């Protein structure tokens, strides 16, 4: 039961009675704390905010930021949008996928690294860009790919 107790503490902190539309902030907090929102947390969230389980499930499944599976140890969010493509983003995506042995939009089987798409980080003049575990990295070239690979394999 401790797993649920963990969720409950985060939920109690965020399910303030007077905060309207509290679901997204609460889901962000759980995602932040546990790296994902497992199915057993949904009934606790629904009860705290007096929503149906269906509503909570519908919202979790809508937004890409909310995952229902445990996260990989490292997460690379590589930008696939037009400005980065104009600066060679597609080629870098191929190199990074080959180098790490993981397809875009997937986590490697060993759980070490996940390569996720992101559509624009707002660094559109210095692409190709990525967030490596939340840290912005710009002008990624072949050397950049190798540096990223070293970092996430550690």
């Amino acid at each position: 039961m401790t797993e649920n107790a963990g969720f409950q503490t985060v939920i109690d902190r965020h399910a303030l009675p007077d905060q309207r539309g509290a679901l997204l902030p609460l889901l962000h907090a759980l995602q932040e704390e546990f790296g994902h929102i497992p199915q057993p947390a949904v009934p606790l969230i629904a009860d705290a905010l007096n929503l149906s389980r269906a509503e909570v499930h519908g919202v979790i499944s809508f937004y890409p930021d909310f995952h229902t599976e445990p996260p990989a140890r490292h997460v690379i969010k590589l930008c696939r949008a037009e400005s980065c493509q104009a600066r060679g983003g597609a080629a870098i995506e191929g190199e990074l996928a080959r180098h790490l042995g993981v397809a875009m939009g997937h986590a490697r089987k060993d759980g070490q690294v996940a390569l996720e798409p992101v559509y624009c980080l707002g660094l559109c003049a210095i692409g190709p860009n990525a967030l490596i575990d939340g840290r912005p990295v710009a002008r990624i070239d072949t050397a950049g790919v190798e540096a990223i690979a070293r970092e996430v394999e550690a």
Partner: protein
Amino acid sequence: MTRVFISRDMASVALGADTVAEAFAKAGCEVVRTGSRGLFAIEPLVEVETDAGRIAYGPIGPGDVKAVLDGTHANRIGPIGEHPFFSGQQRFTFARCGVIDPLSMRGYAANGGWKGLDAAHALSPQEVVDAVKASGLRGRGGAGFPTGIKWQTVLDTPAHEKFIVCNADEGDSGTFADRMLMEGDPFHLIEGMAIAGHAVGARHGFIYIRSEYPFAVETMHEAIARAASRIEPFTLEVRVGAGAYVCGEETSLLDSIEGKRGEVRAKPPLPAIEGLWGKPTVINNVLSLSAVPFILAEGPQAYADVGFGRSRGTMPIQIAGNVKNGGLYEVGFGLTLGELVNQIGGGTASGRPVRAVQVGGPLGAYFPPSMFHLPFDYEAFAEAGGLIGHAGITVFDDTVDMAKMARFAMEFCAVESCGKCTPCRIGSTRGTELIDRIVAKAPRKADTVETLPQMRNAGTAARTHDEEIELLRDLCDTMKHGSLCALGGFTPYPVLSALDHFPEDFGSAHVHAAAAE
């Protein structure tokens, strides 16, 4: 103790600004972290305070401290204002960006901060709305709807509770002005929203920031806390998106704040009358709200005097993609596309010729150089079958494959579709499959179902390339006129503009087909 100014903007940090700041601090300098000036080719930028004002050096690495401090570094630029990228600008909204410490209330006040708010508080709500109307300000998010009229509707709708919502979802590729302003001059947006609250009688506001902007989220949280007492009785809170581009659409954004799936609502009711939790709500983009303090401080006429045709005031244009001088260029409407890409942008970063430019993000049209005469103006671009959107310009050199870009436009729509309306939910997937067939020059043969004898009416002949192109045009027509919002509705802009202006990439003869009406 020499004082130096180094940007903390996410782009600058991505280019190494933090290590440069550490180096100058270790060298005994007083380091002030600011927003970015907005020209990324010269970042990380260091401005050294001297008796003759700030002298800029960029780009600078952590090893260049000594050369910068003794003024001998090769990348010495001198006063940044004299740099050609900045001298031509009219920075009404971005005046303080790169100058002040974004979270210093004292710095903000010392540079004209709160002047607009105080001016607004001296006026009645109707007078403030009239000022915004007189300024000719139009929505900077992309629709270009006159901001003053929107505020008037909210003011006129009686309710015991109203809201101000700032759309900071800026998901368009090639746009970063909202991010730069929130990270570089957060109090400016806060002041704009406080004025809006006073103008329409709203006591609370939400800033909906996309989760892909972690720096902006953090800076706005901190700025709101510091400015709370200054903007009383108006209160503000940040709400963070969760990776859905469609939440940039105003009704989807409202659903998201309400804790729901970001599905687009049908209109009417207009959000100005029945918006957040059914209450009258002002929804404006970061740039629209941030233009308001200037209008109240300097008077609407000063704002309206600048511009072109019905597009009044300045637009912070973002030049991005494969471009030499990528960055933020705030200027009055009217410059031509060519001036922006070639003179100001300096052409491609790769040195190869410019082949195409997408204006207005992933839902904007592609323009060949032959259309670079177009003045940067809402009406002019609409007539040319495109749109200004959030004023992002993405430059491509001649290695670009426009059929692949058209395919990406459909794929992007399929990835980000909220799934509510049929033309977009199903159309975007069928469009992606269709363009793949066109690009692979493999028009569809009759499939197994169609060849069954039971499918008496189904066509059994293989389809031709032209039939597939015509189907793509029909699909775009259905999506353009049938979709519930601009995501499905504008996806045809990049697809058809690529098809019309670059038919060769689609394996078709170079015929300039009339754009779908």
